[in-house]
């Protein structure tokens, strides 16, 4: 394939991937974060103790996470059509990506928040903090490095998931690799796609690591 043509194909696919990852990541995080906070604080004897609701949310999250992504994409086509008016194309692909992101983010944020020392919650309660203040001023603030790493992991996973939405015409790098590299047997396209993906994931991970390190004041020694 002519280099110029390959470049145009790659650029278009990269932008589609970035669009899908960014939109699904942001919306998924906005919805997943409160669920993560809830999961981390609603167990027995915890801040917003509601053990039975916690169990139900936990079950739903597990169910969503154990559904293979490609099945999720197909299964929610009616919902996707309801939201975007279509079931094919990049915008349509964003819907299942977002749905898959929510439970993923929720579990990772839950884990990050559970890492916060329980003593800090007790100290904040002893200061007369409201539960909401404890969440914003203590839990989210202290878990910030962990949350940044969790979101980095989410973005990297989304890059992988986005490769599968070629099945509904979502486009993106993965789709390009399958259609040109595999189905049309053009190994140079396949190789280029893989290289771009590696660079992309590497960049996301490094940026996330650097940001998390900046927020982490725990291990900073003189």
């Amino acid at each position, binding site marked *: 394939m002519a280099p110029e043509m390959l470049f145009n194909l790659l650029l278009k696919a990269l932008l589609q991937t970035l669009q899908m990852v960014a939109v699904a990541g942001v919306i998924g995080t906005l919805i997943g974060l409160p669920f993560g906070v809830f999961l981390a604080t609603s167990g027995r004897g915890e801040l917003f103790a509601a053990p039975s609701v916690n169990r139900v949310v936990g079950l739903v999250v597990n169910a969503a996470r154990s559904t293979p992504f490609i099945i999720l994409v197909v299964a929610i086509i009616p919902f996707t059509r309801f939201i975007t008016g279509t079931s094919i194309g990049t915008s349509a692909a964003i819907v299942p990506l977002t749905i898959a992101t929510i439970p993923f983010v929720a579990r990772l944020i839950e884990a990050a928040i559970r890492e916060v020392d329980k003593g800090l919650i007790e100290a904040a309660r002893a*200061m*007369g*903090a409201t539960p909401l*203040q404890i969440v914003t001023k203590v839990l989210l603030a202290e878990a910030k490095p962990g949350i940044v790493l969790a979101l980095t992991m989410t973005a990297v996973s989304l890059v992988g998931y986005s490769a599968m939405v070629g099945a509904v015409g979502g486009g993106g790098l993965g789709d390009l690799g399958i259609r040109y590299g595999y189905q049309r047997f053009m190994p140079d396209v396949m190789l280029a796609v893989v290289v771009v993906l590696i660079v992309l994931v590497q960049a996301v991970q490094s940026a996330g690591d650097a940001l998390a390190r900046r*927020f982490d*004041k725990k291990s900073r020694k003189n």
Partner: protein
Amino acid sequence: MTNALVEESIGARTMVAFEGVTKHFGESRGQAGFTALAGIDYTVPKGAITGIIGRSGAGKSTLIRLVNGLETPSTGKVMVDGVDVGGLDDAGLRRLRRSVGMIFQHFNLLSSRTVADNIALPLEIAGYDRMSILAKVGPLMDLVGLADKAARYPAELSGGQKQRVGIARALATEPSLLLSDEATSALDPETTQSILDLLKTINRDLGLTVLLITHEMEVVKAIATRVAVIDKGLIVEEGRTFDVFTRPNHETTRALLSGLTGTKLPEAIARRLKPVAGAGDRLFVRLNFFGATAEQPLVSRLMSELGSDVNIITGTIDEIAGEPYGSLVVSYAAAPDVVARANHFYAETGLTTEVLGYGA
């Protein structure tokens, strides 16, 4: 005086009152329930430093957490400055907590905040504006001697410095009561001393009531004017620290006191002691000096009274809650006439003694 007035004057001198307080933890998930507090009646006076001491598991952590409502009693009630903690709604409880500072064994500082921002946290929580927070944080950092560490993070501080931040943070909302939960237990002896000095200064200069729990007699000895000994969820002994330390009644108190320096017999001698006298044995006695007896030349008089040689085994001169105290272990012949003369001397001078045993 009418009854109401009597009540009022007692209330005015009492900071915390535990009235028939029990605490049971229910069984859950296969864990058997247990009783942390079995019936506590105790009052903490205003303006003083009061220590509650006990072994781990004695219920002291539960007890101190009742004061600011971090735990609720199963029965009985807890009054703080005349307010029934159990009768408060959520908002009332938060107001109370803002007037009660608390410091912790593991400091519980936010690792993501600088020293200054950690001290500012309770003020932010209480809704102070940025300017008044800044105005308050500076003097607090001066008070605890950390003015140069304002922009540092807790990870960059030593244990003692962290606890100083904890103290400044606890004082930020100008509480009338400070709760100290094993605040020095994670610190080395030297740092412990400096933190205790700081607490003493705060108590004296700010008139702040301090209620501390600890398992270390040294802590109580150094700063608490009153002490309560808690064991198996009950207060088994309480009073002025000096009285409790010099005349302990309960075996738990004695056991806790035995670790204090200078009161322990050298191991080699302790091993040789027997509970009954054999032929030619010597009697080993501990003499306690305090109050008037601490300032008289009693040892030299004892020697001349007994007409027998007196051997000094070990001894200590110390201060308990600011009062001088001496303890001396001596031995002399266990012959009946010598012992009788000695006992007569003790009765006459008011020395308190404790027979430790007999040995060669």
